[in-house]
């Protein structure tokens, strides 16, 4: 065994949507990797050493060198392993479109859904409204940017944007059960809803998705902790 040479290790956990993104990217590319399952309540010394700035998952360690931030990791995977399906398009303008929408999803939509998870009562109602508004923007934006259909429908494999959408809204049934709130509305967001549905059917996605009950438990736990610390 050549030590660290070509060894790919992912420090993560499947209940983390960020970590799930990286696993999907590795699987799309067909890269062999080792998953070091981290306990987020008891992080390994290695994780803290590899990500001293944020102390978070996921961290990809390749040839002994760590990389953090899920979207940065996915771009690294795409650039470093040029064989296999592309996770980002080749054309600079198309890449800019993907980065723009990935940024919108990652910052704006994620923030808004996190607010729904962490609040209740009137605050939660306002947060839900915001999610719906932003989903509408996404719906319109996808219509404009990808007139032939979603990026996934256009290509042959999941790309970065598909991975981000999948990680955010793939678990929508879990979100609905725990929060009693529906994010995706097939009438208001037909493109996004059908996109998510198609992604959830993929074998690769099913491979990295924990059982429904486990995700429900994890989300409920996260929500309870957030509500408790807000009340404190």
């Amino acid at each position, binding site marked *: 065994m050549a030590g660290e040479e070509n060894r790919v290790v992912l420090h993560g956990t499947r209940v983390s949507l960020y970590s799930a993104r990286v696993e999907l990217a590795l699987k799309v590319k067909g890269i062999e990797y080792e998953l070091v399952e981290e306990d987020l309540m008891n992080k390994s010394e290695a994780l803290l050493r590899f990500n*001293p*700035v944020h102390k978070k998952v996921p961290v990809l360690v*390749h040839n002994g*060198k760590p*990389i*953090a*931030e899920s*979207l*940065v*990791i996915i*771009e*690294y995977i795409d*650039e*470093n392993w040029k064989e296999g399906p592309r996770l980002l398009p080749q054309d*600079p*303008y198309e*890449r*800019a479109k993907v*980065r*723009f929408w990935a*940024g*919108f999803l990652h910052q704006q939509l994620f923030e808004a859904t996190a607010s729904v998870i962490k609040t209740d009562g009137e605050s939660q109602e306002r947060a839900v409204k915001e999610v719906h508004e932003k989903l509408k*923007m996404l719906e*319109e*934006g996808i219509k*404009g940017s990808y007139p032939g259909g979603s990026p996934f429908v256009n290509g042959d494999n999941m790309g970065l944007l598909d991975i981000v959408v999948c990680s955010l809204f793939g678990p929508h049934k879990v979100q609905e059960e725990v929060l009693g709130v529906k994010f995706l509305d097939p009438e208001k967001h037909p493109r996004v809803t059908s996109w998510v549905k198609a992604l959830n059917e993929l074998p690769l996605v099913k491979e990295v998705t924990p059982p429904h009950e486990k995700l429900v438990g994890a989300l409920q736990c996260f929500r309870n902790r957030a509500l408790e610390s807000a009340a404190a």
Partner: protein
Amino acid sequence: MDGVKLHGVWASPFSTRVIWALKLKGIPFDYVEEDLSNKSASLLRYNPVHKKIPVLVHGGRPVCESMVIVEYLEEAWPQFPLLPSDPHERAVARFWVKFIEDKSLNVWIAGRSAGEEQEKPMRDSSEMLAILEEHGPNKGKKFFGGDSINIVDIAFGGVAYWMRVIEEVSGGKMFDAAKLPRLNAWMANFESSPVIAKNLPDRGKLRDYFVPVRAKILSSSTSK
């Protein structure tokens, strides 16, 4: 038509970042100064999602979000590279760009708030600086890009220069030069480097611009 047009605002750190990238790469461009109180029809058409500047239009196609634009320029014009060629080093650079983008929100929030509300964003901004001081790439070199300016310097330049204006206008302190020798040296290097020096909005003019902007925001938030 393959011309490049930038819609921006002279006082904006975000459109200034794009100008730096364009000038460093020697890309000719037309500039459209937008009036934020009366946005042009083109701007609203080019950026329907955020309705914000900067927007870069290349061959009639718009690109939005300052750091997305900088990466686009990097990929479409290879001269004066703003990212290293090694994939791991590129990932490190992108990590720091993201860090700066995420944490610098506190700087803008500090600029828009006062009193108690300003305390946490100020503290969080100082923490961002402490982390960059300690962990930022290419420690011991002139720039975050090593011997020459790269995408991380451009991202941070948009924050550092405006941070001092915000400190003056809002009366808070985020940048403690005594505790940040590395960043202090970085600022001198960055602001005196030829292309950047010629494309830094005047500090006095920025102050005059932001004083009424801040007053307006504060008065509208208290009158709720």
